């Protein structure tokens, strides 16, 4: 995923690019991650990247880190979203890691001066969970029971301060 983001960034740099940075909050009401996280990233033309960290890890021993990018393909900044989420689940005597592929769409909502707001809809697919001295489990599509728990839809907003570079 990091490689994809780097390639997209390099491609985006080829054009005379509008660049900006942004930082702020990642907010959600569903159970996909903690409700309030913080992050930031770079926007280069239509490509928007973001790294999200999880300051609420202290509440329950769980940390969700996201790296994702959206690429605006329509007016209003609508475009596909692709990324990766690593959830660190604290368990007695260790930590289990859950790796998720995140795909979806994103759109820009009206900005308020330097405050930019983006809406995102995601399908988070748990690809593999590992660690904690427990056997590794990869997703399987053999029967519905194998993957029904591993696919989850979610929505989130990013509310950030943004400035041109």
């Amino acid at each position, binding site marked *: 995923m990091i490689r994809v983001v780097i390639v997209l960034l390099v491609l985006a740099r080829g054009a005379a690019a509008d660049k900006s940075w942004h930082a702020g909050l990642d907010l959600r009401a569903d159970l*996909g991650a903690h409700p309030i996280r913080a992050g930031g990233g770079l926007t280069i033309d239509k490509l928007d990247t973001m790294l999200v960290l999880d300051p*609420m890890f202290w509440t*329950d*021993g*769980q940390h969700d880190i996201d790296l994702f990018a959206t690429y605006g393909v329509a007016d209003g900044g609508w475009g596909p979203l692709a990324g990766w989420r690593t959830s660190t*689940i604290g368990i007695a005597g260790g930590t289990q890691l859950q790796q998720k592929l995140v795909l979806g769409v994103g759109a820009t909502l009206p900005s308020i001066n330097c405050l930019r707001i983006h809406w995102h809809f995601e399908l988070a697919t748990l690809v593999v969970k590992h660690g904690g001295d*427990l056997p590794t489990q990869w997703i399987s599509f053999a*029967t519905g029971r194998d993957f029904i728990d591993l696919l*989850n839809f979610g929505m989130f907003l990013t509310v950030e301060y943004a400035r041109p570079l």
Partner: protein
Amino acid sequence: MRGLCSLALLVACDIPQPAVICHNGNCVEPTDAQADDTIEALRASLALEYKGRPAFDGIELDSFWRAEDSTCLYAHDLDAARATPALEPAMELAAHFAEPGDITYSGGPFEISLELKTHVAVSHTARHTPEQRTQHAMCAWEMYAVIADGAVANNRDVVVVFSSFEGALLREIMATAPFSRPIPHQYAGILGVPAPLDPQSQELSTYEGVPLSAFEIHDQWIHDAQWEALLSMDVEIVFWMFSATAETFEAIQQYEPDKLVTSEARLMRRWLDR
């Protein structure tokens, strides 16, 4: 709850510890749905330990009425060939009760969630006829009798919870109850993935007349209206799942269920014990 407890550093805080129930008689990691409701998985699950104690507080057994040959099976469905008679896991449990040592992690009663599957053929929409419902209910009571004999003979504290996605099957259990019931039994409804994704879940009203003590729901398919209805029914809330994700753990913290039916007993136990 844990967040609030973290804030209240100097205040004693009682974090709920739900009971852990082994899903489909198969809760050895990694989750393997193909091994659900097999004797091999049941034996491996019963042997699980955590901190020198049994890893869970109960186990779920599925009973399946196969209409084509009027056979009661230990099976989740007929998607794969299955031929294990429904009485076999009951005999395994009875033998387990005869072994030395505790049989639950908590030290409380061992719960057997005896689920009556709602379909009777490969198709998940092929439902029981009234006669098949009676035969399936009688089969469930035979399983109960084997389990009860094992529990009484070994002085074990065991409760059987008859559960089903279909209220009519539980009413048939009530109608066919034997005179002698040496161990306690209860009733539980089940909700899962809603139609049209899965045809099993039905309206709560279909359980009318059943004295439910618990309702099992899937942790990732909770509707607000259903949730409020369940709270108003004053039943124990049970979350069921196959593979626990971050969403599962968030849901447990948010809704604080009484029991967890999991395919990963050690993971769940260690998460609760974190």
